[in-house]
């Protein structure tokens, strides 16, 4: 069984007792209109005064049903416990998460219930006295982003469906959909590693102090790597294979200002009607180059984690929810997971559409931060919206001749 994430969505017995004092509001119903009640009341009073027994019976009965149903819906939250469980809250596009709502009615009166949120709707069901019910939804991740679970409303009412109350649930959880790990044709695994000065067969780490052995010299390596004694012994040029005893450092800088000028596309429709499979997607138009860049950064992170390199990430994008737009130097898959979370939360800051951003005076804060993090021997990946911004990398790459710099723009990734 998958590990279940307990969302703060269950009510304790103490909560049930105080349920009456919690903020609830009534949904629209013909019987909730005060005028209707007044009208039926007047009709009943008039029938009694004029001794019209049939009318008095009908209007009195109607009034009784209305008031009874209203009272029923008022006490429906009492002794009703609920638990919402989500099996995963971090998803890759295409993956599914299972959302379960368990309800238990611990009283004699049956209750009509339902649940509503931005991606789960209806789910209406009647729960009899001392009965339990469970509803399950499969949430399919479609689009990168953060999907808060803070708008859950539990709909409660009488079994006739006459009156309903919507009770907001105090939820704080969220579902994160990571960007796709998108391989770009701009660079292959080998060329990316070669770019940072390391031979693809060895990974991103090496130490010139210790070497493990030799192999045939390939010609594209510096001549200082040639092992002359071994070459004499084998009668062919041999190069040294180094021990992987030092880590490569790579800083990924993502400047998002400027991405606003790209046209946006309408995303895939998200489902909100009553069904068991729902899609996690946004309704706002998509900035495709921005999304592609995030996917390529995710791919780079994967490459770096595989190679055992240390890497950091810095951006000027907005970060939705908790966290900062900076990921410190680290290594391994857990660190890569943190990078994916930053990318999932990244939002394009507002800017001028259809135009390049105006040149700013002085060094922008993003580059000042990048300058502080980077040090000699660090490789840089600078992601920006236009090739004309390439020159800005000199703000933060010290000793540009010694430090490797890779510049990525949407035009190059195409």
């Amino acid at each position: 069984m998958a590990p279940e994430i307990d969302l703060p969505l269950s009510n304790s017995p103490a909560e049930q007792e105080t349920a009456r004092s919690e903020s609830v509001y009534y949904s629209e119903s013909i019987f909730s209109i005060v005028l209707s009640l007044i009208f039926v009341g007047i009709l009943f009073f008039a029938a009694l005064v004029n001794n019209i027994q049939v009318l008095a019976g009908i209007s009195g009965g109607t009034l009784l049903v209305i008031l009874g149903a209203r009272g029923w819906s008022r006490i429906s939250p009492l002794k009703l416990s609920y638990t919402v469980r989500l099996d995963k809250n971090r998803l890759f596009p295409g993956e599914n998460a299972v959302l379960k709502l368990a309800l238990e009615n611990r009283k004699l009166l049956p209750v009509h219930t339902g649940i509503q949120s931005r991606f789960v709707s209806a789910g209406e069901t009647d729960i009899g006295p001392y009965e339990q019910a469970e509803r399950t939804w499969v949430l399919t991740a479609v689009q990168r982003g953060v999907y808060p679970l803070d708008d859950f409303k539990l709909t409660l009412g009488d079994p006739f469906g006459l009156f309903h109350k919507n009770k907001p649930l105090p939820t704080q959880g969220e579902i994160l959909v990571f960007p796709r790990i998108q391989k770009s044709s701009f660079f292959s695994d080998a060329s990316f590693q070669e770019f940072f000065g390391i031979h693809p067969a060895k990974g991103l780490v090496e130490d010139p102090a210790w070497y493990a052995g030799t192999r045939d010299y390939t010609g594209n390596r510096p001549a200082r790597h040639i092992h002359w004694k071994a070459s004499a012994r084998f009668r062919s040029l041999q190069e040294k294979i180094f021990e992987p005893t030092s880590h490569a450092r790579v800083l990924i800088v993502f400047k998002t200002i400027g991405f606003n000028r790209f046209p946006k596309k309408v995303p895939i429709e998200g489902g909100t009607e009553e069904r068991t499979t729902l899609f996690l997607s946004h309704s706002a138009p998509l900035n495709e180059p921005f999304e592609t860049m995030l996917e390529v950064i995710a791919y780079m992170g994967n490459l770096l984690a595989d190679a055992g390199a240390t890497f950091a990430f810095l951006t000027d994008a907005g970060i939705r929810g908790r966290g900062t737009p900076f990921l410190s130097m680290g290594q391994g898959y857990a660190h890569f997971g943190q990078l994916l979370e930053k990318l999932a939360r990244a939002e394009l800051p507002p800017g001028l559409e259809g135009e390049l951003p105006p040149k700013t005076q002085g060094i922008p804060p993003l580059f000042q931060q990048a300058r502080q993090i980077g040090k000699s021997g660090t490789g840089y990946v600078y992601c920006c919206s236009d090739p004309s911004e390439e020159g800005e990398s000199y703000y933060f790459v010290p000793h540009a001749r010694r430090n490797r710099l890779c510049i990525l723009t949407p035009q190059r990734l195409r």
Partner: protein
Amino acid sequence: MEILDNLNVPNSLPTEALNLGVEELQSLIQNMSKVIIGKRLSLELLVASLLAEGHVLLEDVPGIGKTLMGKSLARSIGGTFKRVQFTPDLLPSDITGFSVYDPKTGDFHFHPGPVSANVLLADEINRTIPRTQSSLLESMGEFQVTVDNVTYPLPKPFFVIATQNPIEMEGTFPLPEAQLDRFLMRIDMGYPTLEEEVEILKRFRGEDPLESLSPVTTPERIHQLQRLRSKVYVSLEVQQYLSRISAASRLHPSVRFGVSPRGSLFLQKSAQAWALLQGRTYVLPDDIKVLTRPVLQHRIILKPEEILRGIQTASVIEEVLEKVPVPVPN
């Protein structure tokens, strides 16, 4: 002893030897507590590992007291103590020892490395390359070292205390799975509480209390206690409970590789040591529960996608413990 009778436990441990052993072990922990403040559980786990003839990996951020804990144990049990600071340029022969040619005799003479000691403190083990890390495999698993086709036995007891920084930190090399499996326990120390930190400041204000720490036992006594530990009774029900935990760890959907049979064996050994430390001659399911996390957390390998989601082995173990029913006496 009523429970013991109900469980029909063969009481093979002499009471006098048991009481003496427990007293000695408690004084060992007490002695270390003079230097290590407020980490009673960590100290007990460390001593339990020593009794179970296992090795310990202490993992936490720098400055928590990992090295100090290793040093205080070494001082408290006497015997030979060696410390190796693992650095990226350390070679396997720097650990195991090497043969040197003597021109006078025309023979090779073996110079034992720091591994030939009762207590070896492998400090910051993940700062060196995996090749050097793996040089400890034979000595930790088989209590011997082989150099130039000659096998040299290691002194008894032989206990490795390795410290490491969290693997996400820059400049670290993750330990290979085979190496991790050789460690009996991985103990996470954690930060001290406010009161504990004040007490640390008080004790370390003047002279280093480690300097005045004297041995309270001997390596020979530890070796005897290790043999005493092997006589602690483990009932069939407890063994089945332990096996169910290992099996459940293999079936968990977030797990790529679950606990190996060696992990189950280590858990049983640790439970025996833990029971002895508590003055019992038999193992309870509670002992297994206490030890499951430190003994198994470094043996479970999660699926890469679960690591990316932030799932940790500790949470997987908690789930496993929740699901596996605990045996109760009839």
